């Protein structure tokens, strides 16, 4: 049966292997061992020169990882959710540690008796009194700041250190809003300055 040529026929007939294609001298190795050239398979094959691509040599410095909202940064982040979770987490744990250290030394100093168990108890009490208070407050501030920063950035359409200043100001104002207008204003100012230092400092360090 002759082989049908696809271009000649109007209707497609299945092509079966013809009897003349079988060569009884063929072995499996004759078609499996042909040298294959990956460059013919894909344009990006053979990347990395003779030694192949060594993934450990790729540039992975912190300065080239994408920071928040694009541009490389020491603190890489993939977007607002990374900012929120990592920022809040780091701030909370920093606040907790600093407050715990403060409470530790306070407990050591003010212990009523040199006995070990009593001192341990006083120190632990001091740590659990100061640590969580500062940690919680720091965490709430970070949460509000990152939330407002993300919201302002999305509303404005682009990200600026100016967003951070605005977010810092609003955070401080809201945080102290129940203590009166003056307290809210001064807290807003302090937080705006702090946020500005943070944002412009990050930008300055990466240039």
């Amino acid at each position: 049966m002759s082989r049908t040529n696809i271009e000649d026929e109007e209707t497609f007939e299945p092509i079966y292997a013809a009897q003349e294609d079988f060569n009884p001298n063929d072995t499996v190795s004759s078609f499996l061992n042909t040298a294959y050239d990956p460059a013919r398979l894909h344009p990006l094959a053979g990347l990395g020169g003779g030694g192949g691509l060594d993934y450990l040599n790729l540039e992975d410095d912190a300065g080239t990882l994408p920071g928040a909202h694009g541009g490389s940064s020491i603190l890489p982040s993939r977007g607002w959710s990374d900012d929120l979770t990592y920022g809040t987490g780091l701030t909370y744990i920093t606040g907790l540690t600093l407050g715990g250290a403060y409470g530790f030394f306070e407990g050591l100093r003010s212990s009523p008796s040199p006995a070990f168990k009593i001192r341990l108890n006083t120190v632990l009490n001091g740590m659990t009194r100061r640590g969580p208070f500062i940690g919680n407050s720091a965490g709430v501030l970070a949460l509000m700041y990152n939330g407002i920063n993300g919201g302002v950035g999305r509303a404005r359409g682009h990200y600026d250190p100016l967003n951070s200043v605005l977010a810092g100001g609003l955070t401080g104002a809201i945080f102290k809003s129940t203590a009166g207008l003056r307290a809210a204003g001064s807290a807003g100012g302090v937080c705006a300055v702090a946020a500005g230092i943070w944002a412009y400092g990050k930008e300055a360090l990466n240039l």
Partner: protein
Amino acid sequence: MPRSSDHSRDPCPYVIFSDLGASFAMGAVGGGVWYGIKGAKNSPRGERFPGALASLKARAPVLGGNFAVWGGLFSTFDCGMKGLRQKEDPWNSIASGFLTSGVLAARSGPKVALTSAALGGVFLAVIEGLGIAISRLVADQNRPMSPQLPEIAPPASH
């Protein structure tokens, strides 16, 4: 059959901070809503909003902090178990829940700590069990079907 590793979470040391932050956010926002409503309900009629504000200002950060400590400790133990056992399993989570609850109750004495630990382990086992059940149910819908082969005429022999 080993479960495929979860690629939606960041690698292990860094994910602890992410979990800390996420737990804090959940606790603080949830606590804000809960204590805001509770404070409003428990205040006299003209004072509902200040009552809600005062209640949530006092309690919501504390709840956030508690959630954060729980989540952070859990994640730390989870990463520790993964490193120790070199496997990714539901058992890691169950053991982490056990250890976390035990450590957080450690100051109340060994018996209370053990009971807390057991409750934490059971809680995590329930969550993991539900997770496995749900993933089995969902995976059942994606079972591969063998394709219907078309009728092929056998090659004419000659």
